[in-house]
């Protein structure tokens, strides 16, 4: 019997040892980093800011999907199918309603809110830290200023794409997010008035926090007080307030950022000149290549799946010696004839640079945009001759000589001309679709493509003014995950 007990105990002991093997269930992987450990110093906060900047991507996408730059091109009249096309973008170009994954609606919405989320996480972490030295306090304030500026920028983009009427204060705009959300919560959109107030507040607070003496203030790749000022001008124009204060800010900016001459302009697209760059997104080796929106590999024949539309080329060719034609149209293009279906019109706005064959900085706000906003404000304030002069100044800079002065007989004529000038100036920079939405609705213009262009996709040529599709749909993924939200009309 004793032997029995010993054996039983022996086996029980083996079990006891085995039961002690708790390491099997307390498994924490190497390299797990929680929020508290992630953000402990000003330097950590700076890395958080670096992540927030990196999230913001109007240039993201490729091979038939994309964010703002792609959306504005494919949804408007600046593109036709390229020789290498396998149908990239055909559905969006045809205005087929789709707001699932991979569509512009989904790309823009999720990218901006991802940026905002990163901003708010750094702000939350910052709130849990206390700094004592003056240099730390200044630095963290400067970081916070940039974070708020970025948050304003992301909200502003969302506002422009997803709001039907920028000037109806009670209609729905977007979700204002200044917090880190809980995954279990749902959210309805704020009103236009609330969103505008929200963006303004962020811009104003950012302005007070940004440190003009900080080293980053000297380069346009970081958010500065000038960026804030430019955003305030843009927001004011969207809002419809063309007051003296806005005009003053525009003039200040134009004073500090003169229009580039032809050489500077061309060099700017090689990322080597910042004369008129108020803010640009730095893109370096390893970053998303914006060229991938139009090319499989690089700017070269038979590689572009999207090309410049004949219509845009014709407009770029209107003024002699317009630098914008040579900046936008690659030398390797083949022009057989006017609106010839075999024209191969290669987009050259992103020729690649130091960061790689498809990689270029994204010139987000340039002096010429302020110049044309100024012209628009002048026109809308009834100062038509002044508006004409402002536009002509820009044309003179682009053509390198005095161009014929426009004659604005009416606001309609002025806005039509300004819209056209914006098309030439900002093609493939993420503005055209929004321009037609905002200015086109005032002058009764929608999208009207040449048959030579829309025929390349066998797509509809026109999108009528005020079509519901000028306001993007709230993406399906948001509707799925947030049952409190309201879809835009028409979808």
């Amino acid at each position, binding site marked *: 019997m004793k032997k029995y007990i010993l054996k039983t105990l022996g086996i029980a002991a*083996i079990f006891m040892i*085995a039961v002690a093997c708790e390491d099997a269930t307390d498994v924490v992987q*190497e390299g797990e*980093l929680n929020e508290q450990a992630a953000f402990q110093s000003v330097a950590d906060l700076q890395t958080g800011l670096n992540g927030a900047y*990196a999230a913001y991507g109007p240039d993201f996408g490729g091979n038939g999907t994309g964010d703002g730059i792609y959306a504005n091109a494919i949804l408007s009249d600046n593109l036709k199918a390229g020789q290498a096309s396998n149908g990239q973008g055909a559905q969006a170009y045809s205005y087929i309603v789709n707001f699932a994954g991979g569509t512009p609606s989904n790309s823009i919405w999720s990218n901006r809110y*991802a940026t905002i989320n990163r901003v708010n996480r750094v702000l939350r972490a910052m709130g849990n830290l206390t700094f004592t030295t003056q240099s730390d306090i200044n630095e963290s304030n400067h970081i916070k200023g940039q974070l708020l500026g970025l948050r304003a920028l992301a909200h502003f983009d969302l506002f422009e794409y997803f709001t039907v009427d920028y000037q109806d204060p009670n209609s729905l705009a977007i979700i204002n997010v200044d917090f880190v959300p809980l995954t279990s919560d749902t959210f309805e959109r704020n009103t236009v008035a609330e969103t505008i107030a929200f963006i303004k507040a962020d811009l104003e607070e950012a302005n007070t926090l940004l440190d003009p003496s900080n080293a980053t203030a000297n380069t346009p790749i970081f958010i500065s007080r000038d960026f804030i000022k430019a955003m305030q001008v843009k927001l004011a124009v969207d809002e419809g307030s063309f007051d003296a204060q806005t005009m003053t800010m525009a003039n200040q900016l134009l004073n500090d950022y003169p229009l580039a001459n032809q050489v500077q302009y061309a060099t700017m697209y090689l990322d080597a000149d910042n004369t008129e760059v108020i803010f640009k997104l730095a893109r370096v*080796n390893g970053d998303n290549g914006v060229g991938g929106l139009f090319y499989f590999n690089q700017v070269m024949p038979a590689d572009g799946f999207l090309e410049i539309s004949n219509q845009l080329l014709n407009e770029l060719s209107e003024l002699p010696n317009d630098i914008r034609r040579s900046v936008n149209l690659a030398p390797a293009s083949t022009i057989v004839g006017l609106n010839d279906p075999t024209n191969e019109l290669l987009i050259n706005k992103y020729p690649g640079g130091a960061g790689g064959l498809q990689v270029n900085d994204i010139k987000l706000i340039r002096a010429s945009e302020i110049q044309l906003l100024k012209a628009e404000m002048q026109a809308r304030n009834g100062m038509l001759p002044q508006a004409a002069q402002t536009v002509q100044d820009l044309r003179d800079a682009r053509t390198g000589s005095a161009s014929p002065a426009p004659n604005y007989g009416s606001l309609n004529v002025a806005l039509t001309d300004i819209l056209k000038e914006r098309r030439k100036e900002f093609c493939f920079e993420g503005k055209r679709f929004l321009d037609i939405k905002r200015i086109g609705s005032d002058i009764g213009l929608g999208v009207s493509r040449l048959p030579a262009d829309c025929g390349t996709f066998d797509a509809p040529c026109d999108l009528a003014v005020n079509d519901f599709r000028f306001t993007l749909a709230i993406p399906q*993924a948001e509707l799925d995950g947030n049952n409190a939200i309201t879809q835009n009309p028409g979808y």
Partner: protein
Amino acid sequence: MKVKNYGLVLVLLFLSVTSSFAQERTITGKITSSEDGLPLPGATVIVKGTTRGQQTDFDGQFSIRASTGETLVFSYVGYQTIEKLIGESSTIDVIMTADNTLDEVVVVAYGNVSSLKRSTAAVGTVKAEILEDRANASALQNLQGQVAGLNIATGSGQPGNDSTIILRGAGSINGNIEPLFIVDGIPVDEDNFRSINPNDIETFSVLKDAGAANIYGNRAANGAIVITTKKGRYNESLKFRYTTAYGNSELQDQPFELTNSTQILQFQRANGAGIGVGLSDAEIAAISSQANTSWTDVFFRTGRTQSHDLTITSGGENSNNFTSLQYFNQDGIFIGSDFQRFSLRNNFNGKTDDDKFNYGFNLSLGFSETNELDNAGSGATFFNPFSAALQGLPYLSVFEADGSQTIDGGITPGDAGAILSNGATNFPYVLLNSIALNTDREEEIKILASLNASWNFAENLYARVQLGADLSTEKRLEILHPNSILGPFQANVIGNQAQFGGIQEETYTRDFRLNVVPSISYSNVFDDKHDVTATAYFEYNRGFLDGLDFDQTGLDPRLLGSGAAFIPGTTTEPNPANGVLVNPYIPVVNSFTSEVGNLSIFGTLDYVYDGKYGISAGIRRDNSFRFIEDNAWGTFWSVAGRWNISDETFMDGSGFDLLKLRASYGISGNDRITGGYYGGLNLTRSLYTAGTGYNGSVSTVVTQLENRTLKWEETTQTNIGVDFAVLDNKLSGSLDVYNKTTDDLFQNNQISLINATPSINSNIGSLVNEGIELSLNYRVLSNDNWKISVNANGSYNENTIEQLPPSTNGLVNTGGSTALGEGQALGSYFLVRYAGVNPSNGNPLFLKADGVTLTETLDAANDRVFIDKSFYPTWQGGFGTNVEHKGFELTTQWSFVADVWLNNLDYADLQEVSVGSVNNGRNRSVTVFNAWQQPGDITDVPRVGSALSSVNYINSTDRYLEDASYLRLRNITFAYNLPSKILENTPISSLRLYLQGENLLTFTKFRGWDPESNFRPTNRGQFPTPKIYTFGATINF
């Protein structure tokens, strides 16, 4: 060689006691096999109604104490049991007859064995003997069509490729759906069988129901496949067995016709694009006479297969041994694809004289080398070689001026213009060049080791321990040759402007899994009628995955193959765009490590009453590291029972040799949230990481949002089954019906995008698999001259998603061709219905969601509907025949799947007529000539220049959704066993010659090379399953 299982014998031996009675005498005798007259060593002799038993020695002799009037029961696995009443004689010789259908050994959980009569579980058993001549590199591929309810889908012709295995339908949406695999007691990686020698396997047992698989608890929610390898036998002389095979493999028949040079040039001319434009008939004829290349013939080839197997078995009084060596080499049918394996296995078993202590040690070493082709299924023109083989244009010549086959088509490396011109027409040359120059190789070393020991430390009490380790190390090497056409494009920043091209990527991984299971068990028989076994187990599981990899861009072609070729990352070159110095050759390096762990305690109870009634029950508590707090522990249980109705007296004379009713019910768990063994390691925690930030800086960003409520996915399964045998056991089979419901499914619960992610992993929803399975075996004839048998199995499985996350409103469609829908089967296509071509203008027509209205506008957002078609089959099975006559054998094995659908992008590409696509550099099916041309044309191909491309049709419409049901002759084997007379004076004891073919015939409606897929929604440029013919010989000496 007969395959005999020793496990049952061991179990029976535990039951024996040594006490005897006075009036007994010694009965001796010899047991031989009716088949060949040879002695049967290891057969069991038991005095009926007692636990006195013995086993025969290596001469088949036995000697047992028994009394007159008692009955001796002679049994041997795979043979019909014989009973002999003891009369006057003290010598009883017995001739036993093989019986492949009855009372086969059934391997159940944790290495225990039962018999078909006693098992309470739904288990399908395949003896590997019938698979031994087959020529597949992976053992699992041989199983397709063999077991009702089991689907082995490989979907690739790469030798050694992993298969996707589904048992009784897919039981999870995002979690693991494959069964647990156990080899000699060790849980192993279900995705890696290429380094295991198929001929070492003795049996596959497919544990289907909760009663069978629940005991494996946390890992067996999808059932389990228990593999046992061969063993030696005690008291057996040294024996050798050598098998060799040699053969060829080739492409399946091509069920579509491609245009030739003349036709495609005429197509281009007629539609105004490509080099055909403006050519006269004579000019087209001239080009066509120069070249009419079948790129399929260029890329595909006849592959060779060869194998050599040597096994050595021996056994002494207290130990036995099995050793095997194998070399296997198989070419893929696509150039650049091959596989070879060297494997070594040793299985050793030992015991004490009194049988109280037994142990076994199994060690398997496998080394395999696979040369393969990446990018099957990819749309990357210059990287998917299978698309090039299908779609290369015929007017491109494959010959150099001197008549040799080109490897570059005259294209200078780095010449982007030549590569891209005319819609990248030259892409077949690029692929040909890449295959000729590049390297894509995986080398794997796999070690499986297991130790099991059993100690009968006190009367009726046993202690057992099982230790197992599965170690896989893999080295993956990919070199894109700097002198290949694509070589110069690889450098960072400046691409083909850099001085050095090429890229070398190497990945090393080490995967080590450890499993320890001690157990203690009590087993006894009360009053001769109550047979009770109770066992308590503890289980400890760990897995460790480590690895590192690097990508080096910039290789010196003179030094290729070693690190000496790497251009240092510090090297600078001017960027031609702006003259700025850049570093084009900076390597990318990475290192990774993950670990997993589980802890379980569990117990089982088996009770048998009078042999006729049996109940098995199990309960277990599992702890997964993936869950926290109260959710970490899951409780799972099962109950199973049987009633051998045919043993009841009222069934006497009923004609049933066996009629057994089984029922089981149980719950098991799944913690593999994201499917992979090393997936979803810390989803209960919000995590940050450092990454590349803005302007080349370091960033800190959130990577994962926590879900602290994650818990076990639970599968509840009910199974009712019948095992039967009638007509003197000639006809036998099983019928099972089951319902398998998975609750708390791991699903991506959609959340607002303001969380910066569209979804988080959650436990939401449920999924049901319901089905019926039937297996039948019929021995048509069995006499001295002829043995004819047929077998068939089939299953029907209906899969229904019952509940999706509420946020989805019952539909999850991420824009692809399939979607998740409540009330729909998993893998259901969700597409706009194509309604043909509008005769008035040649545009495609579609049905609106209402099913009535025709439209030319493809409105993918609003007109998609579920069309009751899924890429998982509902019907599957197999059937086969076996005929033996005077040493000749003819075996066939067919398999089928039905009601399975596959989107055929390959065929869609061959019918591409969308605007701007005429000169897309790709060949067509001759059916493009059916394209609509003028009003009134009735055709199924829209006009050339219509809006929608092949990808549009595939992603959004059912135009190319094809029935991928097939019936395939998996295997046919013709063999001849030389008569033993001829071999009498040779050292050879038997010699068998055979000829076999894999996949020789396929019947399908699918318009592609191969309808078989591994449950993917779309087929594009995939590696088709080959036909394989081999000739082989097996020699025993």
